[in-house]
């Protein structure tokens, strides 16, 4: 329990874009971390300077990853830098990304990774947010989410929580 309270939440651009498009205030309420490459992607894409938010930019790590040549070729430099950074902090961090290839590569390298709706469910289970807040967020997110059926499945599961 002690470890989870101090989990560093490292986010990529998919999470930030989804949140900025739905409930941007979440980004002010939570302590989040990212790397320089992701900050540049967000700045290029949305014209938002990450330094103006509550998101802390951490030094890009150089953790040793176990990735096949094929998988490495299908990930971007930003993805690989995120994985390297998370690998260093892997016992105390959670990567949040809606990219399934990145999530899969993270899992193969012993890095915990949640998608945006899974992360909301995790926050609910940890008591950080209420069920009402979680359901509201999921319903807004569903309108723009890359895999809306995933949200339906999570909402169904949450009924018994």
């Amino acid at each position, binding site marked *: 329990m002690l470890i989870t309270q101090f989990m560093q939440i490292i986010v990529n651009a998919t999470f930030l874009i989804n949140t900025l498009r739905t409930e941007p205030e979440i980004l002010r309420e939570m302590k989040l971390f990212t790397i320089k490459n992701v900050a540049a992607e967000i700045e290029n894409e949305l014209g938002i300077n990450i330094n103006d938010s509550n998101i802390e930019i951490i030094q890009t790590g150089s953790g040793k990853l176990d990735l096949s040549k094929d998988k490495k070729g*299908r990930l971007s430099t930003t*993805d690989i830098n995120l994985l390297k950074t998370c690998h260093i902090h892997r016992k105390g961090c959670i990567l949040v990304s809606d990219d399934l290839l990145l999530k899969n590569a993270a899992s193969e390298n012993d890095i915990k990774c949640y998608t945006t709706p*899974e992360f909301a469910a995790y926050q609910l289970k940890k008591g950080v947010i209420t069920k009402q807040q979680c359901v509201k967020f999921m319903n807004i997110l569903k309108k723009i989410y890359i895999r809306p059926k*995933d949200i339906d499945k*999570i909402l169904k599961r949450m009924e018994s929580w």
Partner: protein
Amino acid sequence: MGININVTLPDLIAGYLKRKSKEEYLPISAIARKYIARGVIEELIIEYHRKGYSISSISENTDVTIAKVMDVLSKLDEESDVEKTLEEIEINSSD
């Protein structure tokens, strides 16, 4: 700087492009170019996705924003194995 391609379009499509050309005060070629580019980019995004490229990588390869890549991929109505992660979340939260 690109190549010229002459194409014969069905009346329905040509009629639509003519109408848009009038509405937007642009040459019909500019309107056609816009729609072709949009369609081809979407096809490219899906092609890269089916080959297993990451969202960030697709964005880099097609020079399209990450948000746009996600919008295109959301039309595929895919789903992932969330149950496994939810089980893990449930187990961890009971620690």
